């Protein structure tokens, strides 16, 4: 499965379009991590636990999108976009969407 966020895949030609595919996941913060982050909030700097959490969640959203594309018979997704929204206090949604295509 090849992913790009431009309209084409360099070196390949698109032979079939399958339309929009998407994947999402909603993650809440771990309370222990939240307390640590609260302490880190005093001194500032990177919150590594959150970076990892969001990265992991985004990968899950991408893999769900890939699964959907695979079930349609696509072998690539072009024009992928990410979006993040906070649904509730302490939880955020990671969303990935793109156009499933078959390339040769």
């Amino acid at each position, binding site marked *: 499965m*090849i*992913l*790009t*966020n*431009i*309209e084409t*895949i*360099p*070196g390949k030609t698109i032979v079939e379009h399958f339309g929009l595919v998407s994947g999402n996941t909603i993650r809440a*913060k771990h309370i222990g991590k*939240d307390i640590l*982050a*609260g302490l*880190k*909030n*005093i*001194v*500032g*700097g*990177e*919150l*590594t636990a*959150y*970076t990892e959490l*969001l*990265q992991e969640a*985004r990968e899950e959203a991408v893999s769900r999108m890939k699964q959907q594309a695979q079930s349609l018979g696509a072998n690539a997704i072009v024009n*992928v*976009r*990410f*979006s*993040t*929204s*906070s649904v509730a*206090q*302490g939880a*955020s949604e990671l969303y990935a969407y793109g156009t499933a295509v078959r390339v040769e």
Partner: protein
Amino acid sequence: MMEAIGPLLNLIIFLLLVSVGYFAGTLAEKRHYQSIQKREAAWLRIPAVSARFDEKLPQASGGEMVYGSAVISIDYFKRILAGLRIIFGGRVTAYESLIDRARREAILRMKENAGPNTDIILNVRIETSSIGNSANGGSVGSIEALAYGTAIRTSQNG
């Protein structure tokens, strides 16, 4: 006498947090900027552009999506400063540097994920989201910056 200790203790804790935030935060920011500048110079040969390049890339052998993200939190001192700024209005410098750091770090991580064999990163998009509401309910405590794009490799680079 005893009644005075409570508020005094609160004041001491507050001042302690502010000073710890000020010194640790300033030091962390300075170090982070030094690291950002150093790595930006090292990765300068891989351009990350926001253009899409409609023309064909004949020599390109492959494209792959790459991304990088960073969550950066503000320190206690700057949060107080920004709180005051919100009353009087004007430029909130405390948050400017916070978001700037997160974005530049995200772009650097994207380049690091793309690897040294990349020729160019096309169609770079940067997204920012607030994941605050953690320690100080409601305020912009920390923000996440995400940078993503398509890494292009030409055939001679494999």
